């Protein structure tokens, strides 16, 4: 599939479909995107497993780090890769060794590896590259517009508030809201 451009429906189906996300290259440093993307997704209702051998066993923002994908105690729906592009094939090897197989391989902004993507797709995974799930969630929920970003979405349906916080929206819309 074409990885230069993704339709909203493709991204939305992935973000609505997955519940557990393993984040390879997650950080314990609060100034790093690999920390606050993990925290943001956790606050939006996903079960997030940070993966970083140097942090294994540590609990950060309420989330327990694991050394390797194979150590995660639950089935993983999506693997989000916060590593340099050349590390993606190695991560993919670990992903493909998991059972059950994750449904989605996602690589962060600036991270793209077309050969690995083709291999993941051949194994039946959906692939998103060079995107940030936090930005995509914020774009589809409308939260990103609070910062003046062009969400490239239009909707006349009322957005759904998420949880107890008022400054938090869900990607669900109108009558379909929980």
């Amino acid at each position, binding site marked *: 599939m074409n990885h230069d451009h993704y339709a909203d429906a493709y991204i939305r189906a992935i973000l609505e479909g997955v519940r557990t996300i393993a984040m390879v290259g997650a950080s314990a440093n609060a100034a790093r995107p690999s920390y*606050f993307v993990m925290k943001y997704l956790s606050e939006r209702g996903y079960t997030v497993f940070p993966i970083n051998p140097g942090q294994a066993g540590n609990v950060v923002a309420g989330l327990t780090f694991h050394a390797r994908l194979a150590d995660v105690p639950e089935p993983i729906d999506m693997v989000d890769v916060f590593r340099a592009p050349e590390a993606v094939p190695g991560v993919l090897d670990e992903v493909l060794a998991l059972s059950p197989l994750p449904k989605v391989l996602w690589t962060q*902004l600036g991270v793209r590896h077309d050969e690995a993507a083709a291999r993941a797709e051949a194994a039946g995974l959906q692939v998103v590259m060079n995107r940030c799930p936090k*930005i995509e969630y*914020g774009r589809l929920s409308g939260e990103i517009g*609070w910062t*003046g970003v*062009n*969400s490239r*979405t*239009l909707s006349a349906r009322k957005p759904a508030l998420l949880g107890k916080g008022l400054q938090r929206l869900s990607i669900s819309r109108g009558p379909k809201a929980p």
Partner: protein
Amino acid sequence: MDDQTQGGDIAREPGFATLAVHAGAQPDPTTGARATPIYQTTSFVFDDVDHAAALFGLQTFGNIYSRITNPTNAVLESRVAALEGGTAALAVASGHAAQHLVFHTLLTPGDEFIASRKLYGGSINQFNHAFKSFGWNVVWADPDDIESFERAVTPKTKAIFIESIANPGGVVTDVAAISAVAKKAGVPLIVDNTLATPYLWQPIKDGADIVIHSATKFLGGHGNSIGGVIVDAGTFDWSATDRYPFLSQPRPEYSGMVLHETFGNFAFAIAARVLGLRDLGPALSPFNAFLILTGIETLGLRMQRHSENTLAVATYLAAHPKVEWVSYPGLAGDKYNALAQRYLPKGAGAVFTFGLKGGYEAGVNLVSGVDLFSHLANIGDTRSLIIHPASTTHRQLSDEAKTAAGAGPEVVRLSVGIEDVADIIAGLDQALDKV
């Protein structure tokens, strides 16, 4: 990274009129209010301490304080970004504030930028005087001589600044040609698109990296609110060199965060907000944002009517015995007509100048004799506006300097409104009779 925030249904991109009404706005999640509410508040309650920390660290989306973000202003920002085809925008207190924040984000003391000589007089003043006191040095170039931009490039050059249609003289700038110079020099191209508006021209398609607006003019369109907007095209690679440290280097203000790495193709808009607006403070009032936003809903309709009326008025004046010359790029035979046909197929806008055979005296008599036209120093109003620069805005200049600035003694500037064109022409006609 160029495609990062592009989503949407590929098969069906919304048209301009749809974006002008809808982009950036959604029903209020708590009350269901359909029009964008005016969030007339300084501050926003945090969900909890953790949420506050995340907001201050730029780690989550949300509002803290209206100097930095405000939900009404944010709808305006998202909408202008959508209309210009940019990734994000920042709304500020005025067009001048927009320019200040753009250059603050790009330049450090001792740097240079190249600017077209054919600019709004207020911008020429800002660049020559206020910016010099910050150590940001303007180097002027001639938009009719593209090579003059190339010759002006030095190792200190950090940006190029032009107006798409220059105020007041109806100069149409060859944006694509100047974009090629900027790309070769490795610097961003900043385009002031105030006079054209994105309805008539979207300079990002011709290579602009940053677009700015005085929203006071056609975006708001009703002469009721001062405001400015900065649009990030998302096209410039801030990390290709270390020349733009606000974007490419760890920021001590935010615990070492690198804005380009974190925010990708909308990093410039974020930098202008959190390192510019936050610290320098020219925030837009949410009430003004609401009025400008309401104006934008009819932007396409108005610009169409403005341009039709203006072409008719310019045609009438060109044939009038008391008129020496008319400078409107929409007129066949005008110096800029070829560029207007290429860049402005929907119309050449509403602002132009013309010269009276009777010189200074005739100019003064004309502005004194008009009834429907308002004699004032603004443009881009629903109402028709007139000014005689030599006796007002350019009064202090010598005759030679007036002429060089396109404000010679015989020059009159019009901003043609959206009234019935027969009334506009009749209004000018009766005043010209008395000149």
